[in-house]
């Protein structure tokens, strides 16, 4: 693996940290609206449904403090964001009240994924081929989209916490 974190440009890392905070804020807004508008406030009440729907959760093993590895972490960060891009798209039609919040979240996740992909390309670390989107769960009712939204937002929050720690480590001078 590459040397210490300093091989990543500082402005790239600062931008990524800002994007993590932006997506976290968007995700929190979605969770808050799902709770106030549809009383879906606790993802743990939807685990059973989540299993049945088959909502995938991307791995960030190379970003965890025990096995922190720069290239692997960036790859996982990008493919995780790419997966969340697809999941958020599959939630379209969640509800008129939530649509604007969902759109902003999806746009910011997409921006973040592109920022990482382009940086990997600039550093010659990008995988040869852009990832293709996994098959997405099918949400057959408005309730399932809202329940799916609650689960995806909650999973995304944990995903971003791990990403934030790793990026802060890389950013340390």
């Amino acid at each position, binding site marked *: 693996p590459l040397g210490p974190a300093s091989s990543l440009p500082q402005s790239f890392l600062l931008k990524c940290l800002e994007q993590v905070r932006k997506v976290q804020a968007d995700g929190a807004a979605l969770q808050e609206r799902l709770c106030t508008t*549809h*009383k*879906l406030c606790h993802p*743990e*009440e*939807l*685990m*059973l*449904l989540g*299993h*049945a*729907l088959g909502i995938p959760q991307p791995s960030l093993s190379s970003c965890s403090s025990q096995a922190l590895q720069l290239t692997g972490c960036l790859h996982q960060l990008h493919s995780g964001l790419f997966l969340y891009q697809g999941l958020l798209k599959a939630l379209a039609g969640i509800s008129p009240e939530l649509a604007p919040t969902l759109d902003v979240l999806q746009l910011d996740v997409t921006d973040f994924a592109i920022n990482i992909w382009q940086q990997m390309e600039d550093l010659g670390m990008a995988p040869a081929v852009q990832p293709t989107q996994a098959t997405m769960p099918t949400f*057959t*009712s408005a*309730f*399932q989209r*809202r*329940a799916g939204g609650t689960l995806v937002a909650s999973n995304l929050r944990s995903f971003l916490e791990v990403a934030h720690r790793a990026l802060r480590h890389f950013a340390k001078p």
Partner: protein
Amino acid sequence: ECGHISLPASTVRLGDSITASCTISPNCSHLGSEAQILWKLGTELGPGERQRRLADGSQESTITLPPLQHPRALLSCCLRWENTLQILDQAELWAGYPPAAPHNLSCLMNLTTNSLICQWEPGPNNHLPTNFTLKSFKSRGNCQTQEDSVLNCVPQDGESRCSIPRKHLQLYQSMGIWVQAENALGTGKSPQLCLVPMDVVKLEPPTLWAPAPSPEVAPPQPGCLLLHWELWKPSLYIDQKCELRHQPQLGEASWTLVGPLLSQTLQYELCGLLPSTAYTLQMRCIRWPLPGRWSNWSPSLILTTAQQ
């Protein structure tokens, strides 16, 4: 599908009760097939009246809900799993009333916007999303016959008024107009109006002023005032009559009405007034002899009569 709530309807009358059923498919409940289905309405949690196993192995619970007292409630179908409460489906319940018939429908022809503007009273809140539509058709005489298709005018969100643009109007023909309110529980119709747009034309007030003192014009007699007015320009083609009202600026004086006044007068001398007293003057006009609606009173003109 993991769990599915089915309801005869998602909107009922306030105070009515409703029977719901929830079916949980075998592949969803990792538990033994005997898991108890629980219902959550708002914050109330409890089992249904009856739970049975269906031929395909899924479990179905049925519940008759208490009379609904709130316009909106969330009904959840749940299971206990690893001592957490798992929500498997959720349905929104709406409760309210069919819409009352809108009333006090009235319309005015506005020559500035060149549109017929109608407004109405929506009636009491029925607690349900309700769409109002202003419906009209071209007709003759007293609107017993419908000359062409019904035009729908949809008001801006939440507004109880709608304006029908000129291109949909025949200004000198009768038209039937009513308001229809619709929600999930039914429809309410206002009484039908039959009107001719030009007969409900509401003019803008005339412009009132005192002619500038000039050699050709003799100053007004004591106790008199010289007035001049001009009709609102876009209504010059309409025959009108006007009314003047005046009130001395003295404590609680009331208005005195002068009229009808011909709309085409260059100069008017108003007499019988108190000398050296300030008067507030206003004027309004109406289409006449053909029917119309009085304009608002014009902005006040304040003139003072000459000394004795």
